[in-house]
């Protein structure tokens, strides 16, 4: 019996060991990307072309349209969306900012969106390093702001987030398929 027990233990130990080996992740189908404000801050920095300090960056994953209907189908209207794929999208402010009249202290946040046909509700939430929006907790919201959807004439294949300078501060833009929203951020 002991020998059987030993053999079974060895078998299980091998099995456990096989799991402890590293799984090398393939290049992600929805790869991660970073956008800075000021735009291309890291490049500007090494070229000594920085004229204003680093203010914000967003870290998000970039799913592809792949001939699918995105908003209202793949991304359901009225439901909290991670603004990307995989991990929930992260936004970091390197100084205090204001969004929709609400003060946001410098630091890391998770940013979600609730898409609708004509407007999206953008959510800044303090729960960090989370996956998807499956465990989204409204009690941890810092702010919510409705922004209008503008329709574009061309369709964008991969989900894109980027900052643009505005008259007062800057905007964070999210574009996918033929929809675009802009979140105003002021300093």
């Amino acid at each position, binding site marked *: 019996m002991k020998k059987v027990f030993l053999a079974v233990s060895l078998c*299980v130990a091998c*099995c456990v060991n096989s799991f402890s080996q590293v799984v090398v992740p393939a*290049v992600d189908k929805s790869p991660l990307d970073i956008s800075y404000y000021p735009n291309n801050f890291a490049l500007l920095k090494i070229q000594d072309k920085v004229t204003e300090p680093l203010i914000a960056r967003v870290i998000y994953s970039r799913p592809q349209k792949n001939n699918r209907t995105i908003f209202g189908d793949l991304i359901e209207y009225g439901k909290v969306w991670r603004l990307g794929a995989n991990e929930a999208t992260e936004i970091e402010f390197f100084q205090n900012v204001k969004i929709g009249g609400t003060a946001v202290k410098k630091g890391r946040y998770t940013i979600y969106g609730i898409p609708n046909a004509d407007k999206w509700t953008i959510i800044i939430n303090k729960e960090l390093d989370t996956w998807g929006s499956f465990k989204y907790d409204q009690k941890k919201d810092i702010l919510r702001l409705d922004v209008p959807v503008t329709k574009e004439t061309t369709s964008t294949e991969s989900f894109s987030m980027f900052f643009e300078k505005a008259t007062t501060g800057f905007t964070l833009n999210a574009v996918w398929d033929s929809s675009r929203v802009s979140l105003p951020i002021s300093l």
Partner: protein
Amino acid sequence: MQFGTVLEYLCQYHCNLNCMFLKKITWRVLFCCATFPFVLNGCRQQADVKRTPVQVDSLATTDKNPYVTYDQSPMDMSYYPVNYPLLKMNKQDSTGLIARAIYSRPHKKNRTIFSYSPQSLCQYGKEWRLGANEATEIDFFRNVIIGGKTVSKGTYVIYCIPEPDKWTIVLNSNLYTWGLHTDTTKDILRTIVPVQRQSPALEDFTMVFMDAPEGADLLMAWDNVKTVLPINFSK
């Protein structure tokens, strides 16, 4: 990233069962043994799938993105504990977040990666950003010990100086920079790790954390080379 497959959950479940066996839940042993070949096979298949590189060129050419170029060397993020956001979501995290690396993943594409030649991608003796595009970033969410020195929690740039048999790994405080414009006056720490050979060659540069008895190991692997940086902390 990309760990949310059903198969992986099954593997985790199976692994949990095995651990429970060690706690003397004997009837499950029989189940484990009976299903062992299938699950192991499944995991091997999973590993094969994960090793299949995405055709990045085809992605790039089909993407007509006017806003943000789709990157040839896409970024990725590795956590320790491994898959922390997923663990957290499933309430399986016991230690809290300890580290994460944000890096870009260049591809081998039949090129010579490490050599003395100035034409090689990573020339021996020259600093390399451990990736592509922006300098690679590592965050520690608590104090850790690397090469016998305490590293305070915070954000660092991590780069290396590859050589045939060893890499010098450097942590640097000059953040949010691009490529190799490294300011060595802002180096925080240097430590030397040995180079191990691996076969087959790895197409995409990879950084992942692994469990270690006294903390975690950061595995850095590309082509036929891999190194491991031990990161110590109390668990």
